[in-house]
């Protein structure tokens, strides 16, 4: 009993709060300097999106996730042990409840967020966006001169020996080798003959993955085996002949199906006179879906929201004399969480400040 009491006392201790905050400080400073050499993505993975990481490959150090969990427990235990509602404590209560909600909400939303990019030329339309942070294998089967899509498969959890589920009868596909970053060699992009692994870059978008797949088929005509070299930078699918069938396999950035179709009508870039500095850029698009069909203007600081989806103006590019507008697409069913919790924390701080300092803090100071 005494042990549990001591445990709760320690969990609710303000000293633990201070130590946790100090650890977060260390991670933030370290992570910021780490970005200079390794980029934001690597810093995020190592310090802020991890439970633990190893210093010099040996000494474990808590990542932000572990510290946040301890901090959340500390906050809840502290609230349970010390909380007694009084008007003067309302501000403190709001600040802490807002912080707990922010931590829980952020953890929850990290599982639900989907980020992708949609690049369109003027006049072009699409309901599929690209998830540049993910790679997928796309399978197409060539039958009677026609191509049929035979499925997509995310490569994140693939490793040598794993069999990829494939819904066409009789064909089995397994992974012989997977490289996170590699170079391809062969007579043409269609015909890659070998893959050579190279050093993995810290910035994820600089890595081009490659796969060696074993494709087997067994039917009445016999059993067939083929090896396919699939490279992310090939630009065209690899042709894999197996028996009478031909499979087209490509390794491409992940795709994401949107609930609406977006058509870029016009992209406008306004510059400050006599300069090439953008004053604003915006895209006039037609959004069509089951519930709407209208024109929308998406510009910097003015996104378009549809249900849990938000479309942002990110950038633009010129290709072959045509302008392409790039929109970021974020699906976040709980995007109100930081707004709501932020407002609760701000109100709490304001109340506490007014109560503590403006009302009672300097009482009697004026002579």
């Amino acid at each position, binding site marked *: 009993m005494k042990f549990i009491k001591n445990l709760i006392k320690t969990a609710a201790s303000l000293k633990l709060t*201070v130590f946790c905050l100090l650890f977060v400080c260390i991670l*933030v400073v370290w992570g910021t300097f780490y970005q200079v050499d390794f980029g934001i993505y690597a810093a995020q993975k190592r310090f802020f999106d991890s439970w633990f990481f190893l210093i010099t490959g040996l000494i474990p150090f808590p990542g932000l996730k572990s510290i946040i969990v301890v901090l959340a427990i500390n906050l809840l235990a502290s609230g349970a042990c010390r909380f007694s509602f009084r008007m003067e404590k309302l501000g403190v209560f709001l600040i802490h409840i807002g912080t707990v909600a922010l931590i829980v909400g952020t953890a929850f939303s990290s599982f639900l967020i989907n980020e992708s990019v949609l690049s369109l030329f003027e006049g072009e339309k699409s309901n599929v966006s690209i998830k540049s942070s993910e790679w997928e294998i796309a399978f197409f089967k060539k039958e009677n001169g026609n191509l049929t899509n035979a499925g997509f498969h995310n490569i994140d959890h693939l490793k040598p020996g794993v069999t990829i589920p494939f819904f066409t009868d009789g064909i089995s596909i397994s992974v012989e080798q997977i490289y996170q970053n590699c170079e391809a060699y062969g007579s043409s992009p269609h015909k890659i003959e070998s893959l050579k692994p190279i050093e993995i870059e810290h910035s994820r978008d600089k890595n081009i993955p490659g796969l060696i797949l074993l494709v087997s088929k067994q039917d009445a005509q016999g059993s067939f085996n083929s090896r396919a070299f699939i490279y992310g930078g090939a630009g065209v699918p690899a042709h894999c002949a197996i028996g009478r069938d031909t499979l087209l396999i490509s390794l491409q950035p992940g795709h994401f199906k949107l609930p609406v179709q977006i058509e870029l009508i016009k992209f406008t870039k306004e510059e400050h*006179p006599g300069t090439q500095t953008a004053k604003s850029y915006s895209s006039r698009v037609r959004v069509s879906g089951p519930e709407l069909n209208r024109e929308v203007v998406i510009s910097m600081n003015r996104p378009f929201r549809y249900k849990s989806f938000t479309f942002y103006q*990110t950038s633009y590019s010129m290709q072959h004399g045509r302008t392409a507008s790039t929109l970021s697409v974020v699906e976040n069913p709980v995007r109100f969480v930081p707004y709501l919790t932020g407002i609760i924390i701000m109100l709490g701080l304001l109340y506490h400040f007014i109560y503590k300092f403006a009302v009672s803090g*300097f009482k009697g100071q004026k002579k």
Partner: protein
Amino acid sequence: MFNKKRNHREMRSNKAIRLFKAIFSIILVWFNSNLTASNEGKEISTEALGKIIVLEEGRKKPLDTYARNKLIQFSGKQKVSGSTALQWISRVLLNPDAANNDPIFLINNPEVADALGITPRAKRRYSFSELYNASHKLNQLANEAMKKEREDWSAFDREIINTERNLDEFFLLRSAFSFLEPTPYLQVNDSSLSQKLGLQLNQSVSYFELLSRAGSISEEMKLIQQKGIDSISPEDQALVDLARRMYDMEKSMENPPPHLIPDAGNSDGKWLGLWGLVNQHKSRSLKQKTMMSLMQIREAYLSGNQKRFDESVLQFNNLVRQQVSAKEKLPDPTLELFYNKLNPFLHAKILYGLAALISLLSMALLWKKGHSVGFFLIMAGIIMHTAGIILRMIIMSHPPVTNLYETFIFTAWAAVIIGIVLEWLRIGSIGTITAAITGFLFIHIAGKYAGDGDTMGMLIAVLNSSFWLTTHIVTISLGYAGYIGAGLVGHIYLIHKMIKADDTEQLQTTFKAIKGIFYFGLLFTVVGTMFGGMWADQAWGRFWGWDPKENGALLLILWGLIVIHAKLSGMIKDTGYAMGAVSGTVLVMSAWIGVNLLGVGMHSYGFTSSGAMALMIYICAEVVFLVVCAIVLYRKKPQTIISR
């Protein structure tokens, strides 16, 4: 007895009023002299010229502002050899040879002067004549530096590249009317061609003079093109050669700044400089009239005819107005000219500096009136400071903070207001000292950023949102001001405690002030960071991205929470809290300037290389101060810092 006391009080009050009146009169005379100071001396008054509108970096601004920005960029100063920036630029544009010896190029590193073969000067400013003679060496060194990666540039390389850039810009400015100068490059060496074109043989000719014969040259060129290659005479060859040299000259001086004339035919909104105009003036009558009025301005300036000068400038401005396209708007320069003349931040800085000096002296000498004088100067300073911020907001139609320069100006303003509030609450004399020191220092730091170009520059697309600029940047600047104010009072508390540890009552009052201001800083940093997250969500599609600037703000919040919770848990006492507040200022400066020096992330638009060394020195000084405090106070009373 009572009457005697009252008389004594009245006498003291009258004395104070007389003192304030005297100071007020001095300040008024000083401001008035600055507002009315213009072009006394031998030179013609160029005040009218200052109203001409120039298009630079997307903003239409008076020539007066353009001149000030250029002079600060070149020399780091607002005046040169007793001339105002406008007088100087008038000289450069209209009579460039007279400006050749103005010491305007600031070279801080004496090694650069050594490498260029010029004698290093104590004032570190060199003239065009000096640098022009060393331009070959300068180009060589700059080319070598440019071969390196930007991050590998040494301080020497940076200074060389900066000097070359400034020299090039100056050269273009002084070449504004160079089409009027006869040059041997364009001389005609063929006698029959010289007769045909009505030019003297083997004599220097100006580009403008040749341009007046452009019709004849063009006709002759057409005839030559119809001839066979075998029938081209030496005269034809000389004409082709002359046309080529004219073309080369036109290309090399395509359209240098300052850009003074709107060009409705230009789709990207570019304006014409004088060379751009001279190549168009034959084709359009309005452009021709504009060219003539510019030449009249020059002639009047050179002949010292004030009346004709003013009339020509007026005529030029009218002609410019006629050429502005319907969608463009020409700004009224009156308010900006007033702002330039008022120079509010320089005056506020001087007033704060004086206030700091007087307040510190009054503390050291126990001179009570000194404190009142200091406070009065602070009030005069804050009026100037506020006027400056409001004027900028009206001129630019923007919120008060849009760039690094303005963050310092605004944070200084907020810190001074905090000091005035402390004074109003009568917490010793810390209010005046806090206001004076922060006001002076931060306006001074802002001045360092003014050298990077127009402080009223146009906003890039992502920042072009008045709502978010107001909510996020203003609140985060208030947060910075709070932390800095608390840090400064923290310094006062620690020094006071080291000198007079038994002055418990005053120390308690000062500590309360630290707590209040520190909390104010934390409050606004949290609010500002939250607003920043919301803005990032609107603009970039994510609330938080672990960008260095975001991390800097988070670090400030975490530090605030650590100090407050450490005090609540009893881990630190009042002195520890004061030390935490002092450390907070180090974190503010690191988050404010330091993260820009990392050069990564989406917020690195505020990057300037200047100040990195100053920041390091400041951080080291604070660390030394805290270590000394800790040793001294620990020796006196260990339990005052850390709880046991």
